[in-house]
């Protein structure tokens, strides 16, 4: 069913009785051309683009819980293309272009809002790094603008410009950056994939990967064995455990990233603002909640919940940067499980097992990557070739030293 404003009105007039299910609940078939393990944003986008771009529709997405139950529904919804290293630049640039056409492509309003991202800097050295980044963005064909202190003040006057600890020198303004409604992205891709014939199978946990003679032949699940000659593991947060079913160790350690939302407030924060000195970033959702977060808790964890030291650090950073949010009350906190890689960049690649592919290691930047990740993973699974904009996301790059370390913090999983 096609969605539109007219349809909302006509359905409203007739008691909203005519809305059909957004997707089916099919029973798993014994065999598919391809299986995607993981019904999160990346997995659903992979299925959608396999169907749309490559005409592969005899495929299934296997989700152990419900669609979108992972990090796609547990993030701070920021969309941006502001990377500095070749390899990342072209990928996120491609992703942002897909975001800009997502509503049309999916016929679903994911509320992608290009309200702008402002990265603040607090020293000459940080300014130089921001300039290097901004120039890389423009060289890639994206947008960036350097703001001095007064330029920042004109956009976000509520910051504490008098605070003495890490004074605001200026900011890098990425106007095409912004936010989106995270759940809607999962639902939009799910609905789009389902409409194209993809089977979305919920409550179906993969318990084994069947390999014969070095090639994948199917998976074992809580709903029985399913055969397929191509299997994609798209399970960020749980990548290590799924890969272990194929006898692989991945360069990934799982960590918890907490995020916070306040009670609803009238609009006061228009942009996404990030405070590098304090690992703090904030935006305001359309419902009025301030959505913000900081760094990971720093210890390996699968708990989907964190502890107070990082909670307090994030709040302290908020109070030093923009003390006008002090009276806002935190309504809810949550934790997502992050695939942390030794260089902070992701993996979209073949594995040593023929027919088995991996899309993993999104650290805590996976949300904005959803469309391009799906696009490139679908390309890889359909053609067997790495897509041009994901050519550096190789599984073996750590071993060979061809790293994509945006932060320069080195081979320590929790520092990216």
């Amino acid at each position: 069913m096609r969605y539109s404003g007219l349809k909302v009105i006509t359905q409203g007039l007739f008691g909203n009785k005519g809305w059909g299910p957004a997707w089916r609940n099919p029973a798993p078939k014994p065999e598919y051309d391809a299986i995607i393990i993981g019904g999160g944003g990346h997995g659903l986008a992979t299925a959608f683009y396999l169907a749309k771009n490559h005409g592969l529709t005899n495929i299934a997405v296997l989700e152990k819980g419900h669609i979108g139950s992972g990090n796609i529904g547990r993030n701070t919804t920021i969309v941006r293309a502001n990377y500095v290293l070749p390899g990342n630049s072209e990928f996120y640039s491609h992703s942002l272009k897909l975001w800009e056409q997502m509503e049309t492509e999916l016929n679903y309003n994911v509320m992608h809002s290009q309200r702008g991202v402002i990265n603040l800097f607090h020293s000459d050295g940080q300014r130089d790094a921001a300039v290097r980044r901004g120039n890389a963005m423009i060289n890639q064909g994206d947008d960036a603008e350097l703001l001095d202190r007064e330029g920042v003040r004109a956009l976000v006057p509520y910051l504490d410009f008098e605070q003495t600890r890490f004074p605001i020198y200026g900011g890098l303004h990425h106007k095409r950056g912004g936010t989106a409604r995270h759940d809607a992205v999962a639902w939009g891709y799910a609905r789009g994939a389902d409409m194209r014939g993809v089977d979305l199978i919920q409550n179906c946990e993969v318990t084994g990967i069947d390999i014969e003679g070095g090639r994948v032949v199917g998976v074992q699940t809580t709903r029985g064995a399913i055969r397929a000659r191509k299997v994609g593991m798209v399970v960020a947060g749980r990548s290590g455990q799924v890969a272990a079913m194929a006898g692989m160790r991945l360069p990934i350690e799982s960590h918890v990233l907490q995020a916070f939302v306040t009670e609803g407030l009238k609009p006061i924060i228009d942009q996404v603002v990030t405070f590098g000195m304090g690992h703090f970033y904030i935006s305001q959702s359309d419902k009025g909640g301030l959505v913000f977060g900081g760094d990971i808790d720093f210890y390996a964890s699968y708990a989907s919940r964190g502890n107070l030291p990082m909670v307090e650090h994030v709040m302290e950073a908020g109070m030093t940067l923009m003390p006008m949010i002090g009276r806002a009350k935190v309504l809810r906190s949550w934790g997502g499980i992050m695939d942390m890689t030794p260089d902070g960049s992701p993996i979209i690649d073949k594995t040593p097992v023929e027919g088995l592919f991996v899309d993993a290691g999104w650290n805590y930047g996976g949300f904005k990557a959803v469309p391009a990740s799906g696009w490139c993973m679908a390309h890889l699974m359909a053609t067997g070739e790495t897509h041009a904009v994901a050519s550096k996301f190789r599984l073996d790059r750590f071993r060979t030293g061809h790293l994509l370390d945006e932060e320069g913090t080195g081979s320590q999983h929790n520092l990216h």
Partner: protein
Amino acid sequence: MRIDGKGLVDRSAPVRFTFDGVAYEGFRGDTVASALLANGVRVVGRSFKYHRPRGVLTAGSEEPNALVEVIEVGQQTPNVRATVQEIFPGLEVKSQNRWPSLKYDVMAVNDMLSPFLSAGFYYKTFMWPRKFWERVYEPIIRRAAGLGSLSGRHDEADYEKAFAFCDLLVIGAGPAGLMAAVQGARAGVDVILADENPVMGGRLLADGGEIDGRPASVWVAEVLAELEAAPNVRLMVRTSVTGAYDGGTFSALERVGLHVAARANLPRECFWRIVAGQTVLAAGALERSIAFADNDRPGVMMASSLRAYVNRYGVSPGKRVTIFANNDDARLSARALMAAGVDVAAIVDTRADASTLEDCPVYAGAEVVGTKGRHGLSAITVRHRGGEMQIETDCLGVSGGWNPLVHLTCHMNGRPVWDADLAAFVPVAGAVPGLHAAGACAGVFSTQGCLADGARVAVLALGVLGRAVRAVDAPVAEDAPYAVLPLWEVKGKGRAWLDFANDVTTKDVRLAAQENFASVEHMKRYTTQGMAPDQGKNSNVGALAVLADATGRSIAQTGTTTYRAPFSPVSIAAMGAGGRGAGFAPQRFMTSHGASVDRRAPMVEAGLWYRPSYFPKGAETTWREACDREVVMVREAVGVCDVSTLGKIDIQGADAARFLDLVYTNVFSTLPVGRVRYGLMLRADGHVLDDGTTARLGENHYLMTTTTAAAGLVMRHLDFVQQAYCGDWDVRFVSVTENWAQFAVAGPRARALLASLVSVDLPFMGCSRVEFGGVGARVFRISFSGEEGYEIAVPSRYGEALFRDLVARAETLGGGPYGMEALNVLRIEKGFITHAEIDGRTTAFDIGLAGMISARKDCIGKAAAGRSGLTGAARLQMVGLRPVMQAAITAGAHLFTPGDEVRRENDQGYVTSVGYSPMMEGYLGLAFLRDGRARIGEMVRLVDHLRDIDVLCEVCDPVFHDKEGVKLRG
């Protein structure tokens, strides 16, 4: 309406406050809600989506409707629960989410459009034209959404944070909590009893029953007197325990100063971290509603809150009250009202077999199917065995049963289980290690049961603490069975509300199910059920019961959404207390700080340190003038610079040399005593960690210096290497960064300056202990400027004096102090690196120091440095840049081969550092360039889009000044 002779408020202390500009009077002990109800105010807010009028629903922190703004001079606090905020003289309260007024809210038009604003409607529209989302649709949605407003001004108020430790934490001071605390107090363990209310007693105060034949409030007072007198008990009122974390750690918010007018030095709130050996959770239970048509009108309240208003505040929320319930407990409210002389028009009991023996009409097997009243309830429609009837009533108390407050038991991913007898979720034991639920939050609902359970569970917890005690006898109290017949919704026409704050109706939940948003998480996210400030405390269980019905599953199969911290919302200011302004990070000051400030030097942040940017002189008006002068001064006379921020690590032991050989790429064991060597350190992953000089002060004694930025990192690294790999070596080290003040003296007259102070003759890279003025000092002949240079170190207490003395001596030689700007230019001229170059991605190969990785020995990082990706022509290599025509260049610019299109695919590198060299009368840059060393002498195009710079530069050797080191070696 105030009831004489009832309530625990202080009738002798009238308090005046304002609501929406109108003055009202209440009494000390009133909340805003109780005082407004006493004054007959019914509409206190507007709902989120449809802007429907909303009245007070509850008497506790779970309140979804009565959210107000508390106004102060120049500041305001949004979304304050009127049911929690105590009144005080001068309190100013405003309603929110309405325009222009509470009574006439323009956005109430949404209510007429509700057929088109069903669950998730916005996902299906507003997509065309594309540009309209940001420009038209979204701004309208944003303005309509939200509840209260922030002022936009800095929150300048005081907040605090504190730690507390105890053996036994008791959360909630109702019957179960009080008994648990008494048990702990008598056992002699350290007890903290925390309760979110201003007075302890919980439902004993609200219900107004009897204990041991006397009013419950008397028993409460006696128990509190015992606890207050006990030296091992800490009572924390107005303290909500908000989260359960690992290791017996709990977060709690104490409302320290919110119940009185703001005054200096009184924090508004204190955020506690409580570490408890064992914890008794006695959080109680919350009454839940029943969904029926138009159940959201002001005047429709929770049944139990009616008796709370009567018994605690002496207020009747209505003149002619009705009750709608599916259980016996709600009868207590009817009886309390009648006992207080309030007219109870009817009890509508959904149970066909319910007793009709009350002093008011009881309709058994009946349901409320509708309500009337535009700005407040005026009548209800009741469907009973005989048909439908209308009852005039201005207040309807609803009870759909009780939900145990299991929240804290779920904060560590525990899931509550469905208890079919109670028709409620109850906690699972052990879900939070060391935490035991007692009383109503464990599904024990009678007062007698709670008293006994509190004692029983405390005995259990004390047993874990190693205190074997016997449970104290519980006093005698009401012990009625909790007879509930589950009913979640009255089906029928019209909209029946589940989530009052977010305007989620049963239709929305059913629509979600119809569209296959059938999992409870999907339903929640699609409808926004439970995402309002009450976090669904009033409505989640009802909503999932409706979902279960719509999807043909049981409630147990449907499951709950996840309960997460905080239990009740906590202000950012409280959790971030201490972080404002300079409080965010420590500040480190050099001993020369005051002397530099005396000379008007701007002090800039360098990590946690502050360092002088430059020392302005005479008529200089820009930093560049001062910087240029200081550079020339060092190159032609002598300059003094405080370099104490560099990390200094004192390393001693027979294996010290061997240890340094392990952590440095180059060899230090061959360094003669009295000499200094430059060293390069790698991370385990083969990239450059840090560089610096290390001096050999004695056979088994070295002094390492690190960069300012990496001092902590290097110390941690050395500790790791030593403890992990060299635990049996004879080597010990300690950071002495704070112990020594160190000053660079550089320039052609540095030697003359030094000679005026002390007689010492050092070769380049030599070091020596000296003494002057009776102070033992160290002198190192090292240079970061390329000039002949010395660094003089003295114990920190002499730092300021020495700095002033050195500067004075320098000035007699035509020199003076120099700051970070000049230091930066001097090191760029010499091609010396800082963390602008070794930014964590750099290898020894990149900076031309691959030869420093000794082939004769192992070192940390050597194995990883051998990976193919870390060397070779594809890497960016450090070079110098000189722009043609002396044009200005900037750090952060990217480099391109002249003639190439400027785009990412052609990117050849970037500029790390730039300075203006007054000596060479032009800008110099350090840059990383693809295959750079092979391109020296070639031209590159430097492009900084952000600053509109596009110039050609010559690629040079990074050492611009004194390539042969003649001046350095002097």
